[in-house]
């Protein structure tokens, strides 16, 4: 009875796997969005656009495919604003191709593939289909240009204090000639730091490339192709299976940094200038005239970073802030913990960056049970720890602000010098914000802001014939292996094949859940995972056969065979798993993508060979009354087993 109940476990797992794979084959609905401007065009232009669209549609999908489109001519009503396309196998490559060919008509970033009920259930509406790699179906390509002017500006911020000091020495009549010479030498040295040689630019681009690589992999956007275009100071990113450029650009262009800056010393003379003016407006009952209100409006209306920066600069002029200081907004939540994170007051901080994100690593978000909020703890690099100690011992009693992007998120007082390489940031973060902040610290900030130079969709890197031939080869190889197993182990081989199929189905479902991207080599790699699974079965049957040939009764031979094989299989797979986990932790780009498949493949292999296979064999022997299990191949004679 027990084994029948046990049978429910794999049955359940397989059922779940099939459910996860279902959206790949389901009929789906695509809402192809229409550019809002199109409705403002003259009727004859509209007609021309839609006619071209439907001509292409007829040519590409009208005759052969099973896709239907609504409305079948003209523009959809302005309220709907979408063409509704229904059919199976609507892939991102197809959607991209339609968008690209009808650029005047289709609003690419608003296209939406309606999620199936399964996707709503499991992933909250996010896609659950297997993504194909750049080689198999192409994807989106973005060329991002490094903005080195902005980079130089940031550099100046770091050195601003020192430049001011050295300049002061130059003017100071009391200083000796030698001091002045030293100062001007130092100034020249600092100046040379601002000079961006091609070599220097390349180094920064390399850093940015690494960071983008890591960001994409941590977002499960595996198998990207990131390369540097030296002549254009640009980075080219190609991503497979992307249908919405807006979300991707946000990930790529995010230049958020985390840095520490010291607040102006008490009694906060500069800040009180702002506060007095704000108070005056408040007393008059004109809240909308206060600067913080104006700034909040800019943020709420999403006018962009440029407008924000300009506003802050105008404030600096208005309140006559000296150049070594800079105004920042302090972002907090309102009274209730659920209110939005918004700028709620201003702070005047040193322009000099005391500790930058490069000095921090390895950040983790954690829940702070004392304040019921999320915080982020991180490790400092050896160099950073030293800086941090100096900073905290020299500035006791002053406020040390943590600036995330251009927001002050936390502003604690320095009570004691902080030694040891660990520190934490506790603001009133939500979980999501804490994770994002931790990612910014761990992955490092982009050293240079990036602007979009070109964006387009690209076709697959392999020709359609190569793809078909390659996939066919892999599938044929798989079936040959299955046939071999049956020829060699007969009934045992059949069971091994069933557990192999289960292995592949569960693995495919797992990889789908994890947004895995399938490339042709990756596909071949999965087949090699199957090789390891075959190996596990081979080890088991060889062991069982040995037991049978010693003369043990079948049911004991089976149990003994599995027991003997258990640790061998465990050891072999666990060591490979260790190697795989190391690859995920240390590797990047292609290594990481490969390692993820490998690790999950090992997990499913262990399950199917040690659990599923065993259950089938035991069921066969103990329940159905199979008395004789012939594990000898059709094409070999009787084998001789040696004993020590």
């Amino acid at each position, binding site marked *: 009875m027990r084994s029948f109940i046990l049978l429910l476990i794999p049955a359940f797992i397989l059922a779940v796997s099939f459910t996860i794979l279902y959206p790949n084959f389901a009929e789906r609905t695509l809402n192809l969005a229409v550019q809002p401007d199109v409705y403002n065009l003259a009727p004859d232009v509209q007609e021309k656009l839609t006619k071209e669209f439907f001509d292409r549609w007829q040519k590409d999908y009208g005759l052969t495919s099973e896709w239907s489109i609504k409305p079948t001519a003209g523009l959809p009503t302005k309220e709907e604003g979408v063409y509704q396309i229904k059919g199976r196998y609507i892939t991102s490559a197809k959607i991209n191709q339609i968008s690209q060919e009808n650029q005047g008509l289709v609003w690419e970033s608003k296209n939406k593939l309606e999620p199936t009920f399964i996707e709503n259930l499991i992933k909250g509406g996010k896609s659950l289909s297997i993504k194909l790699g750049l080689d198999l179906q192409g994807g989106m390509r973005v060329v991002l240009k490094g903005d080195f002017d902005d980079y130089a500006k940031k550099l100046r911020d770091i050195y601003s204090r020192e430049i001011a000091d050295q300049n002061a020495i130059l003017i100071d009549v009391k200083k000796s000639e030698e001091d002045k010479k030293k100062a001007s030498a130092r100034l020249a040295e600092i100046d040379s730091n601002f000079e961006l040689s091609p070599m220097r630019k390349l180094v920064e681009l390399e850093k940015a490339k690494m960071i983008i690589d890591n960001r994409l992999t941590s977002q499960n956007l595996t198998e990207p192709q990131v390369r540097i275009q030296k002549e254009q100071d640009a980075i080219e990113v190609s991503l497979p299976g992307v249908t919405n450029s807006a979300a991707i650009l946000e990930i790529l262009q995010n230049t958020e940094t985390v840095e520490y800056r010291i607040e102006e010393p008490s009694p906060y003379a500069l800040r009180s200038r702002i506060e007095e003016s704000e108070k005056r407006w408040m007393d008059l009952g004109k809240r909308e005239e206060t600067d913080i209100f104006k700034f909040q409006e800019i943020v709420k209306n999403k006018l962009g970073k440029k407008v924000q920066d300009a506003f802050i600069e105008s404030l600096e002029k208005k309140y006559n802030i000296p150049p070594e200081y800079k105004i920042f907004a302090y972002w907090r939540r309102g009274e209730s913990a659920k209110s939005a994170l918004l700028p709620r007051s201003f702070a005047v901080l040193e322009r000099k960056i005391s500790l930058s994100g490069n000095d921090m690593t390895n950040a983790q978000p954690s829940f702070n049970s004392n304040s019921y909020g999320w915080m982020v703890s991180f490790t400092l690099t050896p160099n950073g720890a030293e800086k941090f100690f100096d900073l905290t011992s020299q500035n006791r009693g002053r406020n040390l602000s943590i600036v995330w992007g251009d927001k002050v998120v936390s502003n604690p007082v320095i009570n004691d010098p902080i030694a040891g390489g660990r520190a934490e940031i506790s603001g009133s973060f939500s979980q999501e914000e804490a994770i994002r902040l931790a990612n910014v610290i761990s992955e490092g900030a982009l050293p240079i802001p990036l602007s979009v130079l070109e964006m387009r969709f690209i076709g697959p890197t392999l020709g359609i014939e190569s793809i078909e031939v390659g996939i066919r080869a892999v599938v044929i190889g798989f079936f040959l292996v299955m046939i071999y197993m049956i020829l060699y182990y007969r009934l045992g081989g059949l069971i091994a094949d069933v557990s192999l199929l289960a292995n592949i189905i569960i693995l495919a479902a797992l990889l789908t859940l994890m947004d895995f991207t399938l490339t042709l080599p990756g596909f071949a790699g999965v087949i090699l995972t199957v090789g390891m699974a075959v190996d596990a079965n081979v080890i088991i049957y060889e062991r069982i056969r040995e037991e049978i040939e010693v003369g043990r009764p079948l049911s004991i031979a089976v149990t003994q065979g599995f027991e003997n094989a258990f640790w061998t299989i465990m050891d072999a797979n666990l060591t*490979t798993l260790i190697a795989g986990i190391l690859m995920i932790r240390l590797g990047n780009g292609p290594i990481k993508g490969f390692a993820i498949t490998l690790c999950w493949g090992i997990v499913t292999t262990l399950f199917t060979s040690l659990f599923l296979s065993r259950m089938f064999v035991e069921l066969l022997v103990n329940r159905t009354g199979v008395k004789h299990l012939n594990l000898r191949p059709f094409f070999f004679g009787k084998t001789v087993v040696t004993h*020590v």
Partner: protein
Amino acid sequence: MFNLNYTKYKGITLTLSFVTILLGFIITFTKFGGFAHSLDFDGGLRSVVELPIGKSRTDLESFFKRSDIEAVVILLEKEKNIYQMDIGLGSIDKIEGLYKAIPDSEREAGTSSIDKFVITLRREFQLPKEKILSADQVGAVVGGELTSTGITLLLTTLGIILLYLSYRSQFKFALASAIALVHDILFTLAMIGFFQIKPSVPIIAALLTLLGYSINDKIVVFDRIRENSHGKDNLSLSNIINVSISQTLGRTINTSLTTLISVVAILVGGAVELYDFAIVLIFGVVVGTYSSIFIAAPISEIYDNLRRKRKLA
């Protein structure tokens, strides 16, 4: 199945492996000046062209294949028949060769590789100048950091495997497995250099697969050796090794064969882009299996002999 004295040949096999690896690397670096250049590792040239109606991707690909040029072709715009092609840095001498074959009268000013490539391409496909939409250089996909990451990765992996296997079985087996793994990687790298296989992202995947496969193979053999040597301290290790190898030989052959079947299918199936990948894998499987029997096992025996001698002395 085959009761041979496997450890008897250890002198031959160890020397053979060592010499082959050494020779492979020497030839790679003296004759070829290092590993082959490739698009993924070194970048190359990129050109975007509008092909005349009737010409397609197949024509481009067969031209590159015919001329032995490493190229990746991408369809950019289907309607206008616009293609982008990236040419590996290692294929520039091939382009020089094609360019030299063009009669003087048809050559144009411009001596850079990009110009030569564009002129060759225009001649081959009868393209007017305005159909060449752009010609530029293209950067590498895999940066220089890969070598250092790769070495750190390999060393850390070896360290952890050493620890795990020492804990699970015995140090001599762990050590022998680690050495054999290094052997497999070096052997395959030497071959990649010797045959000037262009290193690419799929080749990295193949190397990693081979690593996993090889670990697996070694452990299966050593597990049997450990099991057989239980309570048989008086028996010589070489005896136990020979028996264990013959006991696991059926499994070894089966596993290697089934793995090889699926890889050979890729090779025979004819996906040109996967040729190198498949060849490295086939080679890796063979070397991985060979080294379990002829490298790892004898090394553990040698180590064991040394230990015993020291104890006696």
